[in-house]
């Protein structure tokens, strides 16, 4: 109908890439069913308790301790995963050695392994009678499994692949001539690394940090085996949600979930803004 009118706004706009309507429609439908509706339900459920009830759940000492542990250790694990991931990516990209491909593939194992299996393996390894746990306990007096440190080990395990896989392609595409130029200008290897290579990798590194953190903060399966799950000490927020669910306190579980969601969103948003500021110089 509108095409018959010779009005400028009525003329159907032609796009160079066809299929915009269809692809956007499918995307929105998918996003609605899988993401928006469940999260919307999550956002609505807690208010059955009223504002006071929600605050009471969130400000409970046990909840706060769980939040502190979950977010603190997830951030720490992501922070440790980043330099480790950089080193890993560097080794895989820059050097050729026998077994490189196996190493390359092994990085992705935490993606593929059921996290419960990983948790069991880590627990067996770090328990006081485990291969690593025993010497650490005997020589240094360190206890890893069933302490917050155990949580850290499990979260590092799941965060590391993200740090590696985000930095690796950028490092691979980093032109070698930039490093050569730095060398001809008199820079040492260390100066080249610090002033040329690392700044060029900074945005990717930050993305790796954000992804690693996001994955770690939501991790459940591997942590519950190694953490010991003592309230106030080594109980993570996702576990607390499960505990509430087992007590049929669905609203309280949703309140904790909403709290995690909000906090994660704030952290990821600020990381995103920081990344944007970093990229402004380079793009």
């Amino acid at each position, binding site marked *: 109908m509108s095409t018959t009118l010779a009005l400028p706004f009525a003329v159907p706009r032609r796009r160079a890439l066809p299929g915009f309507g269809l692809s956007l429609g499918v995307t929105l439908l998918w996003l609605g069913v899988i993401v928006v509706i469940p999260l919307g339900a999550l956002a609505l459920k807690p208010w059955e308790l009223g504002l006071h009830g929600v605050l009471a759940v969130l400000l409970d000492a046990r909840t706060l301790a769980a939040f502190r542990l979950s977010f603190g250790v997830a951030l720490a694990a992501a922070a440790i995963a980043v330099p480790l991931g950089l080193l890993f990516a560097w080794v895989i990209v820059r050097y050729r050695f026998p077994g490189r491909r196996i190493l390359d593939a092994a990085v992705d194992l935490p993606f593929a392994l059921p996290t419960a299996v990983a948790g069991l393996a880590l627990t067996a390894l770090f328990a006081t009678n485990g291969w690593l746990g025993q010497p650490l306990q005997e020589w240094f007096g360190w206890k890893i499994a069933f302490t917050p440190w155990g949580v850290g080990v499990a979260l590092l395990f799941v965060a590391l692949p993200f740090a590696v896989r985000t930095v690796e392609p950028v490092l691979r595409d980093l*032109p070698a001539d930039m490093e050569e130029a730095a060398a*001809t200008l*008199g*820079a040492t290897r260390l100066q080249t690394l610090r002033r040329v290579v690392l*700044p060029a990798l900074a945005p990717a590194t930050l993305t790796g940090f954000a992804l690693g953190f996001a994955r770690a903060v939501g991790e459940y399966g591997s942590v519950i085996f190694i953490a010991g799950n003592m309230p106030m000490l080594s109980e993570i927020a996702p576990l607390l949600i499960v505990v509430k669910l087992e007590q049929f306190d669905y609203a309280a579980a949703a309140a904790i979930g909403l709290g995690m969601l909000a906090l994660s969103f704030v952290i990821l948003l600020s990381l995103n803004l920081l990344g944007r500021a970093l990229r402004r110089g380079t793009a």
Partner: protein
Amino acid sequence: MTVEVQGLVRRFGAMAALDGVSLALEPGEFAAVLGPSGSGKTTLLRVLAGLDFPDEGRVLLAGQDVAAVPARERGVGVVFQHYALFRHMTVFENVAFGLRVRPRRHRPAEAEIQRRVTALLELVQLPELAARFPDQLSGGQRQRVALARALAIEPRLLLLDEPFGALDALVRKEVRRWVRGLHDRLGLTSVLVTHDQEEAMEMADRVAVMDRGRVVQFATASELLAEPETPFVAGFLGEAGRLVGEVRAGLLLVEDVGFTGSVPLPDGPAEVIVRPGDVRVLAPADFGDLSPIAIGKVRSLRPVCDGAWRVVVAMGDRVIEGMAAGSPLPRGADCVLEVTRLVVFGANASGRAIWTANDPGHRSLGAGHQGFFAVD
């Protein structure tokens, strides 16, 4: 600074990128290294810069052997093919880089760095772009930044690796002249690596022609054109027609063309190079009383400047390009070629001879017949 390399060999697996390269540059000289891709010219530049190390041979900068000295200790300025600017740094920081990474006791004070970088940006005519990032610059501007950055460390030797390749034709011409002017003003010694013969011949005092890992000739542009030492140089530089000939008892016979002339070469097959500028295309009527043995046909022609024409002449299966003056010959018309100069290479590198029409030594052949090609 004198720059000399002796017997450089650099192998990559079974292939030798440099296969015994020797060159010597005068202080203040602007030299070009010219060759087709894969001839080893970039490897030579990398060896000079200290980014690659030769398997054999010596690299002498100001008389000192630096073959084992890494790039950062050589103080050689390098402008890379794709500029290799630091993308996350401003133009100012890019240029300041070489000063900032100096060991603390040699590092200038911040005010001095500011002053020197500003002076360099003025030198490359970009003072207003100091705060920009490389991605916000045009190709020509990036190139100037790369040059300023290389000059910041006050190199005595400047290496340019195909630095004009990414510029469009108009900008390229201007930048070439400007770079050469800068070289002269700053008293640098420069080496330009390029595959563009026009660029090499326009900018450089001398051009080293490389072929398969060797420098086949190192001479001025006019020498390279007039007295090429190998068939490769003759064919690679300038426009050249290639003909097949044979030397018999000191007499050159050019196949298909029927040309004869005497050359001081041993008997055997010969490669004959003829430049379009050395061939005059005449209408048979203009040739005068001398009756030509045979005649070619004009295949195509285009004007080059007022009154002169560039003519492609077909002689049987062969095509020869030459010049004509005056009113153009129509396409398909018969014509006669008068040749004034030939470069002849004997078989198996047995020597090179240059034959010219007015060489008194060849008069005995008869002026009428020696000066033109003809077909039957």
